[in-house]
């Protein structure tokens, strides 16, 4: 949800959307499609927007990380020097562990994208880099690009050049901040650390957040925020780590998670949806022969079509997974 575990509600807010093309290769402009859907959901949450999109795998690992919050830039003049130092530290630590940085890009001063070649322990690399003060890894993957920032979809898409992103599938989130700050840390999607290419977006509220968080932390999992939605990402990661497939992990999650929720999970080649047993959060699904689109509201899906489409609401406790 938008806020953390402490909050009462957000019962009607935050929007989530997802799309997967089944037979279209990787040449579909899903960036434009996701932006259209998320912009149509702006009224559910204008504070921040996030994308997890899956494109071409060129053999390198894509690391998305931030070295500051957007608001930090307004805090003091020293932040710019601090950012430079943090980036230098990231470069140094990656090289120390044997990662070869082959490409560097940055959409903003605080948000960076590296392509690296690395065959070592990804968790160790992530932990080592995140040990630098102010640095947070947003995602690591071969085909996953996880982008999130403040503002609506049009703003974020423009800022990060997402309107010509080609790929097969993606999920996204528009956030209405309630109990936690308006910042990138609390924005969705969440990466299922430390697993490549797994991401989660969520609309709802989890009421057994702390109990389950403590249990997962004891197993060695890390949480980067106090947002209850991150629990889903970590839980799914834990289950995958135990050898479960995505669909069975999601089915277990419906029992494991207490509260009201609808969430989406994406992996390298799958898109999944789960709904709580009370069916208290909205989700509308269009299931075509070549494409599946899901969103909190049909008005988002209709941005992709200029004609009538058949849609439906998933039922309570329902889990569905689609393959591209």
């Amino acid at each position, binding site marked *: 949800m938008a806020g953390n575990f402490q909050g009462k509600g957000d019962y009607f807010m935050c929007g989530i959307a997802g799309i997967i093309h089944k037979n279209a290769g990787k040449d579909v402009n899903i960036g434009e499609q996701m932006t259209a859907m998320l912009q149509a959901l702006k009224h559910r949450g204008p504070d921040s927007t996030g994308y997890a999109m899956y494109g071409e795998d060129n053999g390198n690992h894509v690391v998305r990380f931030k070295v500051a919050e957007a608001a930090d830039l307004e805090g003091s003049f020293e932040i710019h020097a601090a950012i430079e130092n943090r980036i230098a530290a990231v470069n140094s630590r990656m090289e120390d562990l044997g990662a070869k940085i082959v490409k560097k890009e940055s959409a903003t001063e605080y948000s960076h994208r590296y392509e690296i070649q690395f065959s070592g322990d990804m968790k160790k690399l992530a932990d080592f880099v995140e040990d630098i003060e102010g640095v947070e890894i947003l995602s690591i993957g071969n085909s996953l690009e996880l982008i999130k920032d403040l503002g609506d979809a049009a703003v974020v898409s423009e800022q990060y050049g997402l309107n010509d992103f080609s790929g097969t599938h993606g999920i996204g989130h528009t956030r209405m901040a309630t109990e936690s700050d308006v910042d990138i840390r609390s924005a969705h999607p969440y990466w299922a650390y430390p697993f490549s290419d797994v991401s989660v977006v969520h609309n709802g509220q989890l009421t057994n957040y702390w109990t389950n968080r403590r249990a997962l932390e004891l197993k060695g999992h890390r949480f980067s925020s106090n947002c209850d939605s991150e629990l889903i990402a970590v839980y799914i990661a834990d289950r995958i780590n135990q050898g479960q497939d995505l669909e069975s992990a999601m089915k277990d999650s419906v029992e494991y998670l207490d509260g009201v929720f609808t969430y989406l999970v994406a992996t390298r080649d799958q898109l999944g949806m789960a709904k709580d047993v009370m*069916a208290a959060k909205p989700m509308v699904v269009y299931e075509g022969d070549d494409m599946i689109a899901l969103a909190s509201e*049909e*008005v988002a899906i209709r941005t992709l079509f200029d004609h009538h489409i058949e849609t439906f*609401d998933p039922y309570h406790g329902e889990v569905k997974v689609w393959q591209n």
Partner: protein
Amino acid sequence: MAKLKQDKSHEMGLHEEQLKGRTQQRFFSIDESENLTYFHSFDVDTSKSASIDALEMTPREINREIRALMEKGIGDITVDNPMSRHGVGVGILNRLNLTFSDSLGYFGCGLIDGPNVHIKGRVGWSCGENMMAGTVVIDGNAGSTFGAAIRGGDLVCKGSVGARTGIDQKGGTIIVGGKTGAFSGFMMQRGRMIILGDAGMNLGDSMYDGTIYVGGEVEDLGVDCVPGEMTELDIRYLTEKLGNYDMKAPNGVEKMQKYVSGKTLWNYDNLEPNEKKLIL
């Protein structure tokens, strides 16, 4: 009408007599002419038609255009390209033939009292909320809280609907051609719900009154919901009601199961004492 007692409680809109049967009573003074009609209720001619292309319109613009056409006496309106927008077709308080050529979003056709609406697509959450009279017929599926707090009229979905269908239903009839989700009929107070397919868990949970008919399987019953006895009257009613919308129970109305409230609330048919109301 029951004899009114002109005292403080009546001035406050309260009354102390016991209700007879299950009919809600309204009290008004004949001198208060504004209470005898609805504001923004129009005298329309259903032989006069018009259409609206809503492709580039906001929900507010669509609703205003519908009202403007009704104000001109047009009684048959078609809205093209509603594009699943929210809150469209609401607050219509007179007879009107209204057709949407495609799907609607949330809260479609809420707070209506009289129109006959046909939606040639799907509807999102809370279609027909607080509907008082008229008919709404949806060709496709519907989202959750379908017909929430409906008080009258017929709300018909030819497809399947989401969770909490008819939550807080206070009257009228809800008909679902397919399945309905969890907690349908939650806190139902009056009226009838006809589900031709399966019903999700906790059907009729905490219902006070009203009747639910199910043609398919029921996942489980909620608290206070119990099977009732189908009578000849039920069968006649279902046959005629479904026939009005060219719908049929898959296994025949005779095979449908009836569910009612298993508990009568204390003092349910009685008004509370004035003294208690005044304290509150």
